[in-house]
């Protein structure tokens, strides 16, 4: 495919707000995980909570959108000059020529949970919770479209933990077909009871900070995050890093367990490499999905060993952020982009006793090297797989 320019990007997670905080946490191997202090009832686990979300105030005109998820979205949009970059694109192309495509797993269901915790005496929502727009999965994208004053195609992708990776694919297709000239992509998910107690019910939550690819890993840590990127044609910004390719595929295996042979993950990977015109040997770094669940890491480590030469570096960054679910794709895409920009292969935090299934590819500690091409893997419930390929400006495959 014709590459696209990533002309702006930003991320806010437990590592901190904005790219400088993220880079600092990565460089100092500083995890953002902490003991769970957010669920409405006690649950012994660790979470990747973003500081200060409670104190965020949405602009007065957007008060009806107020909820934790939209506050985190607003906090994220206000980092790294991202709002200004979107405003400039809107001015350049027109509000109806910029798409807004966001991924989320749970959107603002935390607000619906709250409404159920304090129903009126008659069993209905309290008056202040009678805001239909925040009790729907499109809440995030509808709020961000209003806040950014964008009038182009606007949709929410909700394929669990691959959501905010897949929006890059939708954006590329819309730009290629000439429907729009630019796209804001990204995703936001916030900590809430649904995911904490839901993953706990599935016995997938670790009582400790998660340890991706560690031999003794025992489950995931859940986090929250907001991330965004602006995609334009490369003519608009020859010096910007590039989206080189993407791949999407389905496991057709099980709702909450990956295909044992990583079939869908490999199809998505091959699709991304093919679109990017890439041989696997050209890939310098892979940000793995690496949730620290037994099954995911086993299948993914085998895939890396099967496809890539040992010089390709691989790591999971879930030990820094926790698994940010529908926001994981965009957060890890920004880490892949920072790897290219700063020549930093982030270490696989928490993998202190590497599982023997992991080959020589794994970067257990930070490594400094030039990164021209970086991939990001994202897999979701329902056997939904996505892989993104990014490259340095001017990279020729």
């Amino acid at each position: 495919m014709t590459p696209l320019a990533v002309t702006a990007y930003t991320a806010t997670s437990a590592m901190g707000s904005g790219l400088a905080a993220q880079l600092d946490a990565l460089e100092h191997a500083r995890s953002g995980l902490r003991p769970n202090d957010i669920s409405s009832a006690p649950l012994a686990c660790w979470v990747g909570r973003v500081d200060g979300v409670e104190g965020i105030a949405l602009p007065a005109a957007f008060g009806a959108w107020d909820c934790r998820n939209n506050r985190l979205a607003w906090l994220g949009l206000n980092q790294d000059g991202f709002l200004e970059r979107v405003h400039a694109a809107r001015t350049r192309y027109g509000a109806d020529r910029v798409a807004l495509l966001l991924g989320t797993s749970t959107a603002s269901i935390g607000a619906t949970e709250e409404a159920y915790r304090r129903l009126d005496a008659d069993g209905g929502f309290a008056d202040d919770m009678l805001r239909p727009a925040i009790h729907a999965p499109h809440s995030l994208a509808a709020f961000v479209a209003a806040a950014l004053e964008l009038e182009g195609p606007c949709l929410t992708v909700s394929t669990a933990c691959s959501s905010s990776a897949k929006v890059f694919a939708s954006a590329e297709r819309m730009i290629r077909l000439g429907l729009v000239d630019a796209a804001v992509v990204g995703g936001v998910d916030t900590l809430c009871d649904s995911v904490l107690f839901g993953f706990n019910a599935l016995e997938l939550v670790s009582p400790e900070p998660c340890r991706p690819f560690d031999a003794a890993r025992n489950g995931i840590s859940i986090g929250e995050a907001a991330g965004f990127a602006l995609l334009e044609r490369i003519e608009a910004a020859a010096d910007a890093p590039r989206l080189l390719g993407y791949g999407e595929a389905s496991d057709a295996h099980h709702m909450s367990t990956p295909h044992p042979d990583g079939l869908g993950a490999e199809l998505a990977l091959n699709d991304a490499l093919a679109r990017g015109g890439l041989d696997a040997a050209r890939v310098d770094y892979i940000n793995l999905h690496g949730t620290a669940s037994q099954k995911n890491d086993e299948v993914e480590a085998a895939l890396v060993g099967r496809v890539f030469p040992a010089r390709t570096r691989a790591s999971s960054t879930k030990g820094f952020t926790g698994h940010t679910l529908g926001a994981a794709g965009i957060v890890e895409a920004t880490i892949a982009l920072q790897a290219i920009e700063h020549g930093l292969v982030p270490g696989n935090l928490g993998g202190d006793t590497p599982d023997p299934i992991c080959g020589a590819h794994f970067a257990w500690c930070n490594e400094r090297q030039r990164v021209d091409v970086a991939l990001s893997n994202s897999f979701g419930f329902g056997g939904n797989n996505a892989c993104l390929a990014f490259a340095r400006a001017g990279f020729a495959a």
Partner: protein
Amino acid sequence: MSMLRVHVEGVGLWSPQLADFAALRALLAGATAPAPSPRPAAATLPPNERRRAPESVLLAIEAAGQAVAMSGRDAAALACVFASAHGDQAITDYMCATLARSPAELSPTRFHNSVHNAAVGYWTIATGCHAPSTAICAQRASFGAALLEAASQALAEQRAVLLVCSDTTGSGPLAEVTGCAQAFGCALVLAPQAGPATLARLDLQLGTAPADAPLPEPLQGWRAGNPSAASLPLLALLAGAGGHCELPVAATLGLRIDMENVA
């Protein structure tokens, strides 16, 4: 502005009043369509899955199965775009009620069925489909946004795409805010090129957000009770002799659809 031309090869439809697309045709022709069984049959699912699957999954899979059967395509080869404005409202209601009362009792099965892509997940598993699949929403513009996404995939990837849009009735206190009064699901198989199975050609063009397109008399009022029923102006065109309609694809954006019968 770019125009997208796609070809319809199959149509699926289920509501408590209409068992399939033929029933809609009959209704619009002035006949009385026999009411379907109380639950969508969803025959594509293996019997075990059908017993366990939530209503939202049965509804989406029933519409999908009808459209794919009409197209004659192999379901395993179709990319999938499944849309729903509200996802599984019964599960959302169950989860929020359980979390408010006794969070540790949350059912793991209901939780994994709560993901917005549960229906397309079950569909790809049942049909052995390894093609890309997605699940999207856009409030009352969900059908229009899904049509734009599916048409984009059909043309950009040059492959046939299964589009499904469905919403169930609201449950519990949540029903007051979703306003879903009855189930409605529909599906289209879209292809980039005309072929022997082509029923109709659609030319799609983005424009300003439309007012609600008028609906033929027997369908009046259906749209109010279910966001997926926003598809009805197009379904009515497909059931008739062609023409055009406009559907919302976003809060401030519409899609003009010019439809021409091919079959």
